[in-house]
């Protein structure tokens, strides 16, 4: 079942890509869709990651308030790492939209 899903998804992507590359307007619209999808996925997953980190930090501080200092530092480091991923995704999407090297 999983294999069939993957197969259908791949087919859909390949067919859409061939149609999209048929004309310039199609390429532009497919790039717009791709960036919207990419940013949505990146923001959603980074949000989940940051939320999990913050949840664990709050739980840890509630259980052991004396360890809040160390937890805060680790939390900030984790948030910085996750957020830099979201910012990288944003940069890539902005490049695709406004400075796309693949479209003349």
């Amino acid at each position: 079942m999983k294999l069939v899903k993957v197969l259908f998804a791949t087919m859909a992507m390949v067919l859409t890509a061939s149609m999209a590359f048929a004309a310039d307007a199609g390429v532009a619209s497919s790039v717009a869709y791709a960036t919207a999808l990419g940013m949505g996925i990146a923001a959603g997953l980074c949000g989940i990651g940051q939320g999990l980190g913050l949840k664990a930090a709050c739980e840890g501080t509630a259980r052991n308030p004396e360890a809040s200092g160390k937890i805060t530092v680790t939390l900030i480091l984790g948030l910085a790492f996750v957020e830099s991923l979201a910012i990288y995704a944003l940069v890539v999407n902005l490049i695709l939209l406004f400075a796309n090297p693949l479209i003349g």
Partner: protein
Amino acid sequence: MIRKLETMLYKRGFTHPQVRTMVRNQLVLAVVSILLVNALTACSAWGWSFAAGCLLMTVNFWWMAKAGQKLVSAQRGAVTVLLILFYGRLALTGLALFALIAWLDASVSGLLVGLSTVVVNAITWGTANYMQKAKEA
């Protein structure tokens, strides 16, 4: 110089010593790397893009560290801090990146290297701490 910087950071609300050290390291890394890169590239477009990315990420890290400190310890006003500092900061970062890429034609590689300075700082800080603990053990 470093002590003055630390005092300034303490006055600005960075009460936690380790968080203060991280922010201080980021500030020093940003200033040194911007000067070095612009000296090496003779203030080229790449150098300015690097500087823009570096400054953007440093400001971002400053506000995130401040918010992170308050989020864990503050009991009142945490929602306001979360909304204003977190989402406002992200929106401003997005706008700044949009302006840099779409309007100012910044060098993408320079921008990305500049944006990575926070990651470099965090990895260095983590490695240094790990080495220190390993030495003590």
